[in-house]
């Protein structure tokens, strides 16, 4: 089976599940590139950080586009697991993609209330 190059774009803080979805494709021998747009990062639980590391181990990469990659998600050597990519670089990279998946919902206009901000 041909290995496909898949970009999964996450624009909304509630849809970082796109990383898990990317990992699911990596396990199926595809190349997964989840991209967190404009700093809509998840909480970096052990589960989430392990998934991000696993995507990288499977020859994919989780990217941050439009925000500095967070210090909270690092490997055992302290190196950041999330790589930074500019919007223009992302566009150029996706010209070569087999599939582009804008995942879930777009970015919210309002800031989240305390009830769901964490």
């Amino acid at each position, binding site marked *: 089976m041909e290995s496909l190059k898949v970009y999964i774009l996450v624009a909304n803080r509630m849809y970082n599940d796109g990383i898990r979805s990317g990992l699911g494709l990596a396990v*199926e021998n595809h190349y997964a590139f989840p991209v967190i747009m404009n700093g809509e990062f998840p909480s970096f639980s052990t589960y989430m950080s392990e998934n991000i590391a696993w995507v990288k181990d499977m020859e994919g990469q989780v990217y941050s586009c439009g925000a500095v990659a967070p210090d909270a998600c690092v490997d055992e050597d302290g190196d950041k697991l999330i790589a930074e990519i500019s919007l223009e670089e992302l566009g150029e990279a996706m010209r070569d993609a087999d599939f582009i*998946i804008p995942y*879930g919902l777009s970015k919210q206009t309002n800031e989240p209330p305390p009830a769901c901000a964490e």
Partner: protein
Amino acid sequence: MSADPNKLAIFVTSPQHMRHVVGLANAAEKAGKKLMIFFTYKSIHLTKDPRFKVLAEKCGEDHIAICADSYTCEGYDAAADIPAGLSGKQMRTQAFHGALLDECGKYIVL
């Protein structure tokens, strides 16, 4: 297996576009195309829409599934509350999405 050029994959990731899922599925059927649909993450709430059962029956057991983990994460009971129109075999993993990519010549995200 190579991708079937007459088969449309619909990967449903948004919980708010059931009208597009149904509209596209009906139009694809009318055009004589085959369908394969996977609902993941918060889109699994759409299984509670009355139109879901009709859609599931139209697609058939091998061609529509939902992410069982997503269903559980969203608070539903994946053992005792399988969505209307589905069987337990259609409570799947992300591997079903991989099958969409492999088997379908055309693909859209909703």
